[in-house]
Every structure is written in structure tokens, then in C-alpha cells.
């Protein structure tokens, strides 16, 4: 099943997962090529977050295969996936709240460079410059010394993005990166992520509720419905897809202009 020309960063084949009697992910196929900016959309309960958790190793799946850069990653735990170049963010902001903003990023860098078993070197001075570069990229230089838990919500989302970038991933998975943000801020952070992706030649897969954001940045869109892929294509194709119009866009005409 491995992809023949090796240009796929992520390939998902027939993935299934159920919770009790609910089939949360029901035979999903997905192929994401290198450098893509892929949105995964769908109504609440379509299985987006479950799919994310399955791919990132947070949950075990019932059947199917996941290939990351041509290798099957069945059963690999998150730290191992992180090492291989898969990073992610969470729908509910997930940072180290009582560490300073700088320490957050330094810790991620230390781990990425496999230095986190070192017992006797002061970590304060390690990867400080690299961390500042990353913070600069997400616009948080001024916040570096503050405890990250007291940053405004939007800045915490940016910090989480920096944490994910610290491991120099090939694939970055963002689970509703704009959740809880004001509309203007949403476009800013997505433009930021898209810019970083282009610069670093990394592939991004993201889920998003805000259709404005999705259609503004995504180059391809996958629509999930009831745990299965309903449609896939360019924003234009998806917008014109009759099924999508019926089950999804039709209901939220307000946001899906």
C-alpha cells in the first residue's frame, strides 16, 4: 500500500475507530502530498478530532493503516512520532502554564535535540537564541520572560504553534488553531502558519470551524461527514460539490460565503 513515488507525507487507508456503539471514524482514506496546506472540515461530531488523535498516536485505532513519509506508523507512541517529524497542536490550548514562555520553547528544543536527559548543565543558557528566533517568528519576543499561563489567549495559541515548530516537523497538524480567537486574529494566525509552512517547506493539515479562514488559506479541503470522507478537492471544487452543499455548507450559509 505504500505510496509509489514517495511524495506523500501522510497517507491514511481505511481507518476505523469506534467508541462503544459509535463509529467515530468509519473507513477514512486520506493522501496528503508534501508541501500541502490541507483543511479537514465537517460538522461537529464528524470525527475530525478523533482522526487527528489517531494519526498523532494519541489513540489506538481499530483497523486500517497510517503511513507517514512512506513508513507505517501503527502503534508508535507520540514521542516517537514527534522524533520522526510529526508535530501537533490541540483544540484546547496545551502549553506548560507555569513555565515562562521562553522556557516552554527551550524545553521543546532541548527535547528535540535529545538533550533532556542531561542532569547537570544549566538549561537556562541552552538553545536560548534558537528559542528567541522561534518566538520572534510567532511574534512573542516581548512575552518571553512571562509565565505562559498569564498570556492572553491568542498569544497562548501562538506559543503552542512555536512548541510544535520547535521539533522541526515535516508534518504539522493543527487542531482548530483559531478556536476562541477574534475573527481578525484568526486570519493573522492562519496566515502566520501558512507563511511558516511555505518557508520551511512543511506540510500542514488543519481542522477549522471558520469557513472564511478555511477558504482563504487551504489549498485542498477534505470534508468529513459521519466519520467518512464525503468530498475532497480544491476550495472551488468543494464549494461546488452538491453533497457538501446539502449536508454541510447549506446549513451554515452564514459563514460559508
Amino acid at each position: 500500500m505504500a505510496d509509489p513515488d514517495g511524495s506523500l507525507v501522510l497517507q491514511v487507508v481505511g481507518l476505523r475507530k469506534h467508541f462503544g456503539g459509535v463509529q467515530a471514524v468509519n473507513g477514512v482514506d486520506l493522501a496528503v502530498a508534501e508541501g500541502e496546506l490541507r483543511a479537514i472540515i465537517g460538522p461537529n461530531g464528524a470525527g475530525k478530532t478523533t482522526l487527528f488523535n489517531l494519526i498523532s498516536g494519541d489513540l489506538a485505532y481499530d483497523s486500517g493503516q497510517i503511513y507517514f513519509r512512506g513508513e507505517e506508523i501503527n502503534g508508535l507512541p507520540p514521542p516517537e512520532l514527534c522524533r520522526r517529524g510529526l508535530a501537533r497542536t490541540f483544540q484546547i490550548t496545551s502549553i506548560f502554564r507555569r513555565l515562562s514562555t521562553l522556557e516552554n520553547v527551550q524545553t521543546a528544543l532541548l527535547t528535540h535535540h535529545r538533550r533532556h536527559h542531561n542532569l547537570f548543565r544549566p538549561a537556562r543558557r541552552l538553545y536560548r537564541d534558537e528559542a528567541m528566533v522561534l518566538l520572534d517568528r510567532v511574534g512573542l519576543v516581548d512575552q518571553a520572560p512571562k509565565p505562559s499561563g498569564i498570556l492572553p489567549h491568542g498569544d497562548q495559541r501562538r506559543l503552542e504553534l512555536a512548541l510544535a515548530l520547535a521539533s522541526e516537523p515535516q508534518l504539522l497538524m493543527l487542531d482548530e488553531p483559531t478556536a476562541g480567537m477574534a475573527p481578525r486574529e484568526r486570519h493573522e494566525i492562519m496566515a502566520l502558519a501558512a507563511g511558516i509552512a511555505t518557508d520551511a517547506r512543511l506540510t500542514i493539515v488543519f481542522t477549522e470551524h471558520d469557513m472564511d479562514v478555511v477558504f482563504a488559506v487551504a489549498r485542498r479541503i477534505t470534508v468529513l461527514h459521519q466519520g467518512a470522507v464525503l468530498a475532497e478537492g480544491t476550495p472551488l471544487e468543494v464549494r461546488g460539490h452538491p453533497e457538501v452543499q446539502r449536508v454541510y455548507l447549506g446549513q451554515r450559509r452564514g459563514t460559508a460565503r
Partner: protein
Amino acid sequence: MRVARWLVAIAILLILPPLLPSFLVVVMTEIAIVALFATAFNLLMGFGGMVSFGHAAYFALGAYAAAILVKQAAWPMLLGLAAAPFAAAAGALFFGFFIVRLTHTYFAMLSLAFAQIVFTVVFKWKALTGGDDGLLNVWPPAWLKSPLAYCYFTLVVVGLAMLALHAIVDSPFGYALRAIRENPRRARFIGVNVRRHQLQAFVLSGFFSGLAGGLFAFFNGSVFPDFAYLNKSFEPLVVALLGGVQSFFGPLAGAVGFKILETYIARQWPIYWPLFLGAAVVFVVVALPQGFVGLLQRRAWRTRTAR
């Protein structure tokens, strides 16, 4: 400035003991040992977010390893003391392997269960441990026998151990440990093998607890099964809590306060000591979750920001 402060502290510690009445020299020695035990414990609680209810097990393993090697195998004292932390670390590795699989309340309970097993084994294995009677006459050699000499010896050993612990807290290892405390899931996704890291912290904590136990064996001149009992497990917890678990030196401050109070209150009114201790714990939990050091720090922070 920082260095100067440190030099002053060291100078005071070096000059003070001969000036003190001899019973205070003994108290000071004990404070140092309790401070080490509580700081080792706090590596887990304050920095790793893991609360052990059975840390007496590693204290006792260290104490008994030293006592048994010196008494039953006739090792020299220094070698026996050097073996103590390794014996405790081995125990911590074995028990910790299972304990770190659990979280929160269950973590605390399994650590307690293992400590009770250690206690019972120590209590029942008369041939090796002397059972209820303990092992007596575990004294250091002549050159360390005076309270003053042993006080200096303890200060040096504890000082070095605290230095190592301080370095560990500030090291990359310590950063990753704090990251796990804050958010284990996120830690996994930046590439930390959470359980393995927790186990390493557990072993390190056991190592230094065992060193404290070894020092205490020669300080006390005897070892008893109580060293592994519940009350002993709660000692570092109470001390760290009183001093403040969020700061590295909280347990040290807690140990000073705890032992001075114990010396005066427990001697004057031994019956009221547990009442006082219990009430203090209840008070700290309900009113001062950051401990006394935390309170001072908050004050300091407030005055600094107010300026």
C-alpha cells in the same frame, strides 16, 4: 552578589557549630538530614507533580543498607554510607517501575503499599535487620564520633547533595520534568517519554532519600523499622509543604522550622506535638497552599511590583 550571598551562608555554617551548645549541634545535624530527605522528596512533588506516600521506604533502604553492611559485613563506615543511596535507588527503580504507571491518588497509594511491604519485611526479617529491636551501635569511626565532627561531615555531604539536586532541577532533565508536571500530554507531543522520565526522577529522588537515610543511621547510632513506617513517609511531605513545594529551598526552610519547633514544643509538651503538627498541616492546606516560603515570595513580588 549571588556568589557573595552564598559565601556568607557557607561561612556562617562553618563558624556556627562550635559556638552552639552541643544539643543544638545535634539539632543542626538532624535539620541537614531532614532537609536533604525533604528536598529529594520535593524533586518528585514540587518539580515532577508526583506525590509519594511511601518515601520512608527509600530512606529506610538507605539506612538499613548502611547499617547492615557496617554491622553484619564489617564494611568501613564511609563505604557503607556510599552504598546507602545505591541500595535505595535500586529499590526505587524496582518499585518505581510500577508506581509511575499510575497517576495522582493511585500513584500515592501504590507508593504507600510498597513502603508498607518494606516496613513489614524489615520488621519480620529478624536475622538480617534485627526486627523490632533494630540494629544497635551503628556508630561512625572515632574521628567522626563527636557531635561536632559528625555535624560538619553531614553539612558537607548534604551540601554537596543539595548542590547536585539544585543542578538537576535547573538542568534540561529538570525542565522536562517540570513540563511533565504542567502538562504530561503536551510533554509527550514534544518528544518526552513521560513514564521513563518520571521513573528516572523517582530513582534520583530515591537515591538522595537513601543518602539521607544512611546519614541518619550513623547519626542515630541505630536503625529501627519505624524508619520505613507511615509517619516517616509523611515527614518530608509535611516539611516540604510547610516550607513551600514550589521553590527549591522551600523544603530546607521547612526543615529548619519543623525541627526547631519539634525541638522546643516536642520537648516541652510531647503530647501536643502531633496536635500542633496536624493543625499546622490543616492550616497550611486550607489557608496557605504555597507554604510559608511561598507566602514570603508573594510578599516580595508584591512589594517589587508595587515600587
